[in-house]
């Protein structure tokens, strides 16, 4: 019992942060599945959602601010795709990746400019920010809400992809871009839809994440972004359940390592895991085997 009592805070923190990572990782994995693009700007979209919340909640009631944050983030994701990736559709993959790095640079620098370089305090969300006690461990309610909400959203997303027209089109495009286009699928709208879904989930993720760690800086998106990307690769990039499981594993392991006192290595662990999985099973846990084409 005392073991449980001692380790519970770490596991709770791990599950909660894992859920938040999962919501971001889905954005990475879906975009990669369709465009074969590592969307380096996704972590910054997540940060931007946090910034929107900080600025909007200063003048609007939360009931109006939250939907507006979701809307603005979706719009940002959509615009990034249209402005920075679409013109490069026929360019080499490396150019698109560079464009993603450029966008990430731009978002961070804009955030730096508008905040004046200071950390912004994230508003307290009623109910979510309250503290609760379970089995003797004290934590915020958001810790408990996160995994449930994550799983609900993932199930919803899976159903969406399996049964709706857009979802089927997405799967088709990710299987074979050119053939899908020939079959009359409007590839550009499918890609936009992917970015919209990814950004929406990132916005939800940011609501949960920043309620837990209530400070937003221009670089807040960097580390979580990188970790979520690793989670997506770990789970097999392109696979949604893979990304979710990868994110939970990374979130939990990271907190347990910190709990053991090896704090310097919490980030290293993430990358070590990445390299091991790449060497042993390069396509990740659930990834499809890629074939070389001549």
């Amino acid at each position: 019992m005392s073991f449980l009592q001692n380790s519970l805070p770490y596991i709770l923190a791990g599950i909660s942060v894992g859920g938040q990572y999962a919501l971001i990782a889905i954005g990475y994995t879906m975009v990669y599945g369709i465009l074969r693009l590592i969307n380096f700007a996704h972590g910054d979209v997540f940060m931007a959602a946090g910034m929107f919340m900080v600025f909007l909640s200063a003048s609007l009631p939360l009931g109006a601010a939250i939907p507006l944050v979701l809307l603005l983030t979706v719009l940002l994701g959509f615009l990034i795709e249209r402005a920075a990736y679409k013109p490069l559709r026929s360019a080499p993959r490396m150019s698109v990746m560079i464009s993603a790095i450029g966008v990430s640079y731009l978002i961070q620098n804009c955030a730096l400019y508008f905040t004046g370089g200071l950390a912004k305090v994230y508003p307290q969300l009623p109910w979510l920010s309250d503290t609760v006690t379970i089995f003797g461990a004290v934590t915020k309610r958001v810790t408990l809400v996160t995994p449930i909400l994550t799983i609900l959203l993932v199930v919803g997303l899976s159903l969406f992809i399996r049964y709706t027209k857009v979802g089927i089109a997405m799967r088709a495009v990710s299987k074979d871009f050119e053939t899908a286009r020939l079959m009359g699928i409007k590839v550009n709208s499918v890609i936009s839809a992917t970015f919209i879904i990814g950004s929406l989930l990132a916005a939800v993720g940011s609501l949960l994440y920043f309620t837990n760690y209530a400070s937003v800086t221009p670089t807040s998106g960097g580390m979580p972004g990188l970790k979520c990307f690793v989670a997506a690769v770990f789970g097999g990039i392109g696979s949604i359940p893979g990304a979710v499981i990868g994110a939970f594993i990374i979130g939990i392991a990271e907190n347990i390592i910190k709990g053991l006192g090896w704090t310097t290595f919490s980030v290293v662990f993430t990358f070590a895991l990445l390299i091991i999985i790449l060497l042993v099973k390069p396509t990740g846990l659930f990834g499809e085997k890629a074939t070389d084409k001549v």
Partner: protein
Amino acid sequence: MKLKNEKKKDALCTLIAIAVMLVVLIVMELTMKSTSILFTVLKKGMIYALVAVSMNLLNGFTGLFSLGQAGFMLIGAYTYAIFSMPTAVKLGDTVYKYYDCAISLELGIFPALLLAGLFAAVFAALIGLPVLRLKSDYLAIATLGFAEIFRAFFQWDAMGPVTNGANVLRQYKDLTKVKIPFTNIPFPPTLFCFLVAGICIAIIVLLINSSYGRAFKAIRDDEIAAEAMGINLFKHKEMSFVISSFFAGISGALLAMFQYTVQAAQFKTAMTYEILLIVVIGGIGSVTGSCIASFLFIACNEWWLRFLDESSNNILGLNILRSGFRKVVFSIIIMIIVLFFSKGIMGEREFSWARARAFFRDPFGLVSRRKKPAVSEEVSGDA
């Protein structure tokens, strides 16, 4: 025969241009105030040019998408700093405050620079064995991961007696400590950077133009065809990776010399992204492009755009100019280049005298533009 003469003439031109550049540099260093920001930009620009060219060797000439450059610079910078630090400093407690330094060896500047490159190369050889089997994006992520692991490893407490933990290293032999051989006169620091980095870049260019370089390009263009032609893929990839890391290590060491202090925390992925941006802006697969882009990048970032940060420069009572605006403008410029000039400044071409002469005869195609319709009519008539 005529071609050969042309080649000789061009080589002579290049030599003269380099000599003129060096003389100008010497004159500038002797006459201008050494603290001028111009020299800061020139030094840092040259150091970044070296690392950009070394990254270009991998990404542009061998087609290996690697994002580990910052990690190898870190190794080079630390190796240089640790081995060139005077023994008295190591034993004292101004630098190694919390640890007893385990390395008592003190090397001169050139041996330490060489060792910096060698250490980076050895690490590269080791991680190359497993990592180079991966392809494209996966290779990029794996090298990026290794760079982050290096950083954490160098910051590790247990490495403290060697790396001073996560704390800064300083008081090693920096650029002001370089002396003209056999005298006690300080060597002009900017000239030193240009000479060391210039020689390294020249070696890379020779390598690219050798039979190995042709093998690299063959691998870049088509791995399977290259293998069918009898090129040992792994051997050449490993070679390119190790050589690139060697020079990244040297540029890391030069960066350490330039900065006076060095700390693992600065060698983040953001640094690799910066170098990658330089390579892309210059043109993937162009050595001259990387060099030009590196000077432009550093000058914009650290010098030319600074006035955008000063609120005293605001006009019309607008309050847009303030701290951070420079970076916004800078990233917008980068986005414009990436989106509209995706081939970069030089594309895949190199600087050539023939093209330079053509440019001076007809800058920006202003003269030929008027003639163009006639040409196209001719072509369409043929068709």
